[in-house]
Structure formats: structure tokens, C-alpha cells
């Protein structure tokens, strides 16, 4: 059985961010990422927290970012695009595998509505 002893675990919010970035592809910058999270979570997301978490992911090497051109509708400020790295994809797949195994181990769990 493969062990995850020497790897850092993804937090809940970090995992959601990575999935949102993967889903958005080339258009993964702050606005669509936060909208994607809000639509799935059903509550407001702080843009500052999104960037803070994305910077942590970038430090860990799970995403890379690059600045686009400034646009007038953004007050002349550039967009920062994010892209998941190979290591980021690997950690997402591994987290999914572990979570799936854990969920499958408790088939009798009944969730209240």
C-alpha cells in the first residue's frame, strides 16, 4: 500500500482551489476562481483568502502564476493567471484516492439533510 508519510496534505480549501483552477483551464484567474468556489460552496469567498491560499500553493510548487496584460475594465491592473503543475495534479489525484478509500470504509454513514 502506498504511504503518504513524506508528503504534505492538501487542506480542504486548497483542494477546492486546485480543482477550480483545473476546471477553469486557461481562464483561471482570481475572479472566475472565486466565482467557481462560490457557486459550488453556496457562500461568499474572500478574494484575499483565495490569493493567500494560491500563494501558499505556489510556494509548495503545486501551481504557477503569471501576469497578463492590464485591462481598462480592471482599472489598468493586470490579471494573475494560475496553472496547476504536474506535482499539483499528482497531489490532487492522491488526495482523491485517499478520501475515496476513507469514504468507502464507512458505507453505513447516514448524513442528515
Amino acid at each position, binding site marked *: 500500500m502506498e504511504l503518504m508519510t513524506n508528503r504534505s496534505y492538501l487542506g480542504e480549501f486548497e483542494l477546492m482551489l486546485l480543482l477550480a483552477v483545473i476546471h477553469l483551464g486557461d481562464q483561471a484567474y482570481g475572479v472566475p476562481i472565486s466565482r467557481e468556489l462560490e457557486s459550488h460552496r453556496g457562500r461568499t469567498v474572500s*478574494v484575499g483568502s483565495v490569493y*493567500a491560499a494560491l500563494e501558499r500553493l505556489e510556494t509548495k510548487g503545486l501551481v504557477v502564476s503569471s501576469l497578463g496584460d492590464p485591462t481598462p475594465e480592471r482599472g489598468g491592473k493586470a*490579471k494573475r493567471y494560475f496553472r496547476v503543475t504536474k506535482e499539483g495534479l499528482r497531489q490532487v489525484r492522491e488526495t482523491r484516492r485517499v478520501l475515496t478509500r476513507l469514504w468507502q470504509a464507512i458505507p453505513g454513514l447516514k448524513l442528515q439533510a
Partner: protein
Amino acid sequence: MMAHLTPADRDEAVAGDLLEHFRAGRSSGWYWRQVIVAIAVAWGQSVWRRRAPLLFAAIWSLLSPAWELFFLNRSRHKPLIGAIWRLPFPLSTTCDFALRVFVDMFFIWFGVLVYVVLCRIAFGKIELRRPWIALSASIVAFAVASLGIVAIVGAMFAMGYFRVRGVGGETFTLLGIVEDLGIWTFCVRFQYFAGTAAALWFLSPRTRTGVRLAA
């Protein structure tokens, strides 16, 4: 507002995103809440990144009452101080003030040197940035902290809340004053913490070293 209230190592993308959200139909209340949170998060991140130098500044400032006591005891008997006090006003006050600033900054920057040496030993090469800004910031931070302390302590004295033991140092040894947790030692430590923390804050390298333009 974000350009002025967030640390200098934050980029413009967050501000641009908030503006885009607002122009897409978000409310003013939502926008200002996001701005406040973004500023708080930015500062929280910057403080967390600099936790080692800030912790060092807190520890180094614990020794500052001993430095103040050492200087007070030594200066009384030095001909330099006597010569300064014999100068005509306002030259005497100016020279005394300049000497005090030099003594205070000497302790702070000796602490910075100790920190740099410790980092060098622990991590090898260390990158320092903006030394002149760091020097200016440490002087300003020390001065602002001093004024703040004077204002608060003066107000509390006026209201008769407490009395401070003699600050002439007669009742303290150097070790004893380091262990002391009284108001005077707290005030001294706060000033030196502010100056040392400001110096190390601006000397620390920014984390975002550069960005690539999208193809």
C-alpha cells in the same frame, strides 16, 4: 486604498479582481468588506513570513532595559555628557538628543548584526535589502513608539494610576532589570522592539521575486 495600506510586496491583481467584481454588479458593502479582508490577509501573510525576525526583535528587546541602565550609569560619569550639558541652549539639547539617538540605534543595529550572523550560521548566504530604508524605518518606529509611550504613560500618571520606581537605576542590577516586568522596563522594551522590528522588516527580502508575462 489597497495600494497604500497593503505591504509593498503585494501585487495589483487582487485590487484588479475586486474592481472587476464590483463593476460586474457586486454591492458597495461587499466591495468594502473584501477590501478590508484583503488588507488584513495581506498584512497577516507579511507578518507570518517575517515571524523569525519579529521573534528575534521581541527577544532582543528584552535586553534593552539593561542597555539603558548601562548607558545611564556610564554616561553620568563621562566627561562627554558634562561637556554637552555645558553647551548653550539649544545646542546642548540638540547634541544630547543626537547622542541618545546614536546610543539607541547602536543597540538596535547591533541586534540586527547579531540576527544576520545567526542567519548566516544557520542558512549560509543571506540576502539583505533596502538597508537605508531599514535604518530610516527603525529611527521612525523608535520615535513613534517613544512618543506613544510618553503620551500613554503621561496620561496615566496624570490620572494617578500608578507610580514608577526610580529610573535612575539605583535599585537595579543589569540582570535584575532584564528580569523586571515593571512599567518602565515594558516601555523601554516596546521602543526597542519597534525599532528592531522595523529594521528587520525592511531588511527582509520580499518573497515574490518576479513574474512572467503571459504568452
